[in-house]
């Protein structure tokens, strides 16, 4: 086989392999939490439908262009081979040039029409996204901190307000208004299964409407570079049926569990008399720190440290003793606790459900 023909064959092989890879990738990527193409709510559904519409159109355009490109190379192999370094310059046939011009003109017209269709599709999707509203919807104020999420469930009655961190619960099937603000630098609230992202910019408070249609635990992550621990600023959104949600909400509204065992009492003392009380709040005790996450019902959360570690005793111990090992640069300092103090504190924190 001549060298040139070999090169053409390799070229075609590569394109074929590329197409197969493309299909494999497409197939493997539709499952899972934090996945754009696995919508759990209406907003993400609209976007996911738009994605597939765009995807098939752009893939077709790409295949068309490749076909024409490869044809342009291959079809000339039927003509006599021109050796490298040939001085021969082909003359141009004005009829053929005119035909090509008309063809390209048509292609441009088709491209323009396609782009217009894509633009309209985006416009209509945008309208659907913005039409999600409800009169007295649940409102959650999310404030981004370096590097955790503060969530306040707003309520007309002040004592019904709930302050929690890094884990948000929503009732299924109802629109929820998320008010977004930042405490320090730009963050971005993003739960792919539910909606696109929105930036939290200091000085520019904004709003996002979401609705979860399927019960489940959805993972989100900060999507705007915000410093050392941007990589570890995750959040969980738990969508549950209305009655479970109300149970959760009333639990969160209540004061913290009063310690019963001796260890738990000792643990509460450790909490209130060492560094913890300077930054954290536990509703029902004197601890009212606003610097770090609210810990009133921390034992109920699935994860700790903004999704860095699961909520389990060993992880919690490691986090308390040396947060800098798990999240270097985080604002929580290292601690020097004796093992008695640590065990008591863990017992106390585990009782806060």
């Amino acid at each position, binding site marked *: 086989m001549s060298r040139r023909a070999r*090169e053409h064959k*390799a*070229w075609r092989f590569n*394109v074929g392999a590329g197409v197969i890879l*493309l299909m494999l*990738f497409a197939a493997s990527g539709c499952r*899972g939490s934090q996945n*754009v193409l696995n919508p759990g709510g209406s907003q993400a559904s609209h*976007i996911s439908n*738009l*994605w597939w519409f*765009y995807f098939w159109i*752009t893939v077709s355009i*790409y295949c068309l262009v*490749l076909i*024409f490109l490869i*044809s*342009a*190379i291959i079809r*000339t192999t039927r003509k006599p081979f*021109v050796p490298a*370094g*040939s001085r*021969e*310059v*082909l003359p141009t046939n004005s009829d*053929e*040039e005119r035909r090509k*011009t008309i063809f*390209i003109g048509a*292609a*441009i017209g088709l*491209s323009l029409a396609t*782009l217009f269709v*894509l*633009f309209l*599709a*985006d*416009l209509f999707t*945008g309208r659907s996204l913005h039409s999600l509203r409800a009169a007295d919807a649940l409102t959650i104020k999310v404030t981004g901190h*370096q590097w955790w999420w503060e969530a306040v469930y707003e309520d007309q009655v002040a004592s019904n307000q709930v302050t929690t961190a890094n884990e948000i619960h929503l009732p299924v099937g109802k629109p929820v208004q998320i008010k977004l603000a930042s405490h*320090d*630098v730009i963050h971005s609230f993003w739960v*792919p299964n539910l909606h*696109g*992202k*929105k*930036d939290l*910019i*200091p*000085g*520019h408070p904004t709003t996002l409407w979401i609705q979860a249609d399927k019960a489940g635990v959805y993972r989100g*992550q*900060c*999507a*705007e*570079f915000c410093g050392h621990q*941007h*990589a570890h600023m995750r959040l969980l959104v738990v969508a549950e049926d209305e009655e479970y949600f109300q149970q959760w909400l009333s639990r969160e509204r209540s004061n913290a569990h009063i310690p019963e065992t001796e260890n738990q009492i000792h643990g509460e003392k450790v909490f209130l008399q060492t560094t913890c009380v300077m930054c954290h709040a536990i509703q029902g005790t004197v601890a009212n720190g606003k610097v770090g996450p609210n810990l009133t019902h921390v034992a109920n959360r699935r994860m700790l440290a903004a999704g860095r570690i699961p909520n389990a005793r060993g992880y919690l111990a490691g986090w308390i003793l040396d947060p800098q090992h798990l999240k270097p*640069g985080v604002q929580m300092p290292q601690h020097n606790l004796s093992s008695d103090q640590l065990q008591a504190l863990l017992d106390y924190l585990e009782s806060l459900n």
Partner: protein
Amino acid sequence: MSALVLEQKELNEPLERVALERVWKRPPGFIGWITTTHHKDIAIRYIVTAFIFFALAGILAFFMRLQLSFPENNILGPDRYNQFFTVHGMTMMFLFAVPVMEALGLYFVPLMIGTRNVAFPRMNAFGYYTYLAGGILLYVGLFLNIGPDTGWFSYVPLSGPQFSPGKRVDFWAQMITLTEIAALVGAVEIIVTVFKMRAPGMSLNRLPIFVWAQLITAFMIIFAMPAIMLGSGMLAMDRLTHVSTHFFNPAEGGDALLYQHIFWFFGHPEVYIIFIPATGFVSTIIPVFARRKIFGYTALVLSLISIGFIGFGLWVHHMFATPVPELGQSFFTAASMMIAIPSGIQIFCWIATLWGGKPQMQLPLLFVLGFIALFVLGGLTGVILASVSLDLQVHDTFFVVAHFHYVLIGGAVFPLFAAIYYWFPKWTGRLLDKSLGLWHFWLFFIGFNLTFFPMHQLGLKGMPRRIYTYAYDSGWANLNLLATTGAAIMGISIVLFLINVWRSRHSGVNAGPNPWHSPTLEWATESPPPDYNFVYLPTVQSREPLWDEVSPPVVCGLSNRKRESLITTLMEAAPDHRYELPEDSIWPVILALVVGGGISWAIFDPWAVPISALLTFIVLCFWFWRGNEPASLTHHVQSSEDLQLLKSEANKI
């Protein structure tokens, strides 16, 4: 002007050549090296320096990929990783992509339009040294742990004085100032040279598309660079001791979003500044290897001009996730999609050229084919990103990383490699080795796709950008490992390329003056071209001068006792007057030292600004001192004295 045009057989070329060699010779040794004002010397320096930065940025990227190969990896901690991705971005955008594109222009524009040097040779040299100073500033910072670490875009408030303590972000701001001065210098050179110094007969509609691309890029640079200088200057002033402005402080009436607008008003045209010269390379290479003239010259030029304009109307598509009004966002969606049309016209014209030609599968064409395959893919993911709703999901994820690497590597680096394989024989007189080149191409193509194609998937699976690691339960580990493997393959291919360049410089196959039988004027002189470019400046009568049946007359009568070139009119390129080019000079280096040193010192002390301004004024006085100035700036050849002089000089030959 017929007095200037003589029959070729009446000329004594060897004598003329000897005289020109004497006039254009550089002083020997280091002094000659440092004081040169020859555009080809400066351009080669830009290219070599840019490739060194390319290699450095590639090494940084490889470390980033190593760190991301496995979940919760600990090769690079967060601080180091942040510095690495920031410096990688800055190097690729400011120290490699724009300078290398401009450098190819600075080398070939004077040759392609048939003149001897750029319009302002000393300023050209100053531009290079300023660029070098900026690059050194950045890497000294990186090696001393003062590398900027807030991203190449450096958003406030993270990069502001409160959240970025120390001097790291100030290194970012001042490095940008230095490299943008160099970029503006290059842009001015290209515009003035193209408008005023073309060969007689090269009217604007006969300009090679390469030159059109460089011209349009130069205009874009002039309109876009001031925005980033403003933005980085405002950030620097916010951060500077004793200055402490509040441009981006919301509590005192400033606005963090303002920074994004200013930055992206520069940032979006920047990527077209990188891409448009690459289209110029492609439009040059395809006709040569299809053995026919380019299809749709007018359409291609108009497409380039419209990309230049529309490119300034797209910037908010980087900000769709911010609270900018939704109606405004739709406008930018429409504009971002609209720019696909002129890009599409170019692709169709190139395919049409190949369709009617007899493609010769040489390496430059292979890289161009790779470019088309990869750039169209990147452009289509760009159309996806233009949609606000889709962008809200994939913005700031690895989907965007995949997109811009497809358009930047596919759309700019592939044509750049094509250009190097194409023009290497012009620079060195030798061809690059073909089989090493094939290994380079295929490894680079395969490695690139393995690295960046999975990133589309990663973005859709929720992986954000600029994270130094990720959790075990994210499900991203396999694709990341695949991407790292691809990166290793890319690295190997670049090493092969560098070996090829190194070896072929001295032992490659000899090429003549025009090994590819190309139509453009740079191939009408020796390889490598002499310092004066052409013994006699050419005239042109068509778009493909070297493919004409009859070679047109040449210009003679320019002095061979001083460095002289010819100024022609803007539209028709009729000869207008002679222009004396300055001698080699030390002042560009000294000015670059003052400017570079002053701007670097300003990081630590605001007094550096007035002091270095004063020193700049002093140096410029020396630079422009009477006696250094070329004598005959507006010396029209219409006077009868001149005509006598010309005739007598012609007779001497």
